[in-house]
């Protein structure tokens, strides 16, 4: 149950952000640029989003799907134990190490963890990955903090937030 007032529809993150329309618009612009103009492969961003959501045990975020990102159901299943999976590239594994730490151990991220990602991505992309991880982390915190319920359809949530083109 969300803490905020609503009318009839289940509370989605987009509908709650819409209580502040100017923030919703700016947030959507930021989110879309991250997915579409950062130079980071959407699959890498999607893996990061799902892993951060997994670390938060955030059902409403985990239910969202971005099919265009190219993450299969098998990939999603393997994320729970990605360390032992062979489904992910070295670049993806480096990003997933960061994704594991951002939610609850951000202060423990060390130089080698970032250096591992820099061996695969240019600095602008590394910056975008870190921005993405913190944004995905924020979404989970918003969802938990405001009591956002899992969406009835992922498409509804994606439409409210902005998503992949």
């Amino acid at each position, binding site marked *: 149950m969300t803490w905020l007032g609503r009318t009839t529809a289940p509370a989605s993150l987009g509908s709650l952000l819409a209580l*502040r329309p*100017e*923030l919703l618009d*700016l*947030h959507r*612009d*930021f989110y879309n*640029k*991250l997915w579409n*103009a*950062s130079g980071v492969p959407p699959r890498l961003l999607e893996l990061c989003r799902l892993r951060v959501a997994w670390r938060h045990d955030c059902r409403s975020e985990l239910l969202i799907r971005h099919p265009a990102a190219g993450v299969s159901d098998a990939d999603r299943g393997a994320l729970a134990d990605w360390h032992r999976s062979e489904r992910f590239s070295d670049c993806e594994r480096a990003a997933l190490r960061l994704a594991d730490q951002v939610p609850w151990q*951000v*202060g*423990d*991220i*060390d*130089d080698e963890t*970032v*250096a591992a990602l820099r061996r695969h991505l240019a*600095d*602008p992309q*590394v*910056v*975008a990955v870190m*921005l993405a991880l913190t944004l995905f982390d924020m979404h989970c915190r918003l969802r938990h903090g405001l009591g956002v319920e899992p969406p009835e359809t992922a498409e509804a949530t994606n439409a409210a937030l902005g998503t992949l083109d």
Partner: protein
Amino acid sequence: MSNRPRITPVVSGSALAHQPALNDAFWKLYGALWNRGVLDHRAKEIARIRNARVTNCGL
């Protein structure tokens, strides 16, 4: 926690400048949060400082 930047800053000491479009979108959102919000600045600043303390962010 490291107190040295892990990404070489390119403009005004900000790693975000590596991504000009994202940097612009981020600061528009952050600026709106600070300047067009329904909360007073004191409340937001207290929350910001407390968050930095909890996350041990001395930067």
